[in-house]
């Protein structure tokens, strides 16, 4: 999947979000993910019953886990994650449900874990690496939709710190820093302009 496809898919989901979750009115911040939010839209679009569960495990390695079945999916996340990281993790895993196909399914957990531990996101096949990175961008595009580009850049121009901007969107500060990094900003700006 190309970056352009990620943006287009996020835009489609966001259109459905406005229709289904905002009664057609412009979306307000922060974007809702649970309780008639993005997850319900993604569930409708994929035909999967999606549950999100927070569990209290005392660990430092695993933060979240996606399990996709034929007709359902579970997104499990750690109680150690703060609000913003929880929201982001849920969206990132949900984005896999939207965009992945059989080619990018992970079917060998041992190779998957070995890859993670060797500091490469996923090494089973090249498509896995791309799918993981695209899911990060996809989650970013879902939580910081293109319609808020002007607002986002305005906050930055007004001198707000990335942490303060992150609070507005309820996303991790690191995600705001990534979104505002010159290279990604340039790519997404061009894509968003082409879409409008």
């Amino acid at each position, binding site marked *: 999947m190309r970056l352009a496809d990620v943006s287009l898919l996020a835009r489609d989901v966001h259109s459905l979000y406005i229709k289904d979750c905002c009664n057609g009115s412009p979306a307000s911040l*922060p974007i*809702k*993910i*649970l*309780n008639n*939010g993005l997850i319900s839209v993604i569930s409708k679009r994929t035909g999967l019953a999606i549950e*999100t*569960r*927070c*569990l*209290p*495990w*005392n*660990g*430092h*390695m*695993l*933060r*979240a*886990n*996606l*399990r*996709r*079945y*034929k*007709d359902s999916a*579970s997104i*499990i996340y750690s*109680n150690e994650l703060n*609000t913003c*990281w*929880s*929201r982001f*993790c*849920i969206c*990132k*895993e949900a984005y*896999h449900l939207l965009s*992945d196909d*059989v080619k990018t*399914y*992970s*079917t060998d*957990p*041992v190779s*998957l*874990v*070995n890859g*993670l*531990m060797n*500091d490469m996101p996923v090494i089973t096949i090249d498509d896995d690496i791309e799918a*993981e990175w695209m899911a990060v961008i996809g989650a970013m595009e879902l939580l910081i939709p293109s319609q808020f580009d002007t607002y986002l850049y305005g906050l930055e121009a007004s001198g707000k710190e990335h942490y303060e901007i992150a609070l507005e969107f309820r996303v991790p500060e690191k995600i705001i820093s990534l979104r505002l990094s010159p290279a990604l900003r340039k790519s997404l700006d061009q894509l968003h302009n082409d879409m409008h």
Partner: protein
Amino acid sequence: MEEQEKFLEWYAKELDKGLVDIKFYVGEGSFTKNATTEEFFREANRVNELYAQQKFIPRLDVF
């Protein structure tokens, strides 16, 4: 490889239930230089146990 074997037993059962894809999100700094796959699978097995026991935490702050 006890923990890995335990996880793979769980995984095989889930495949029978229709599991088609599994992904782990580890985030930054998850692994120290001494980390082992056994430790990872111990954590994953703990998650499976908690899930089976339905030890779900309501997170009203996650909206």
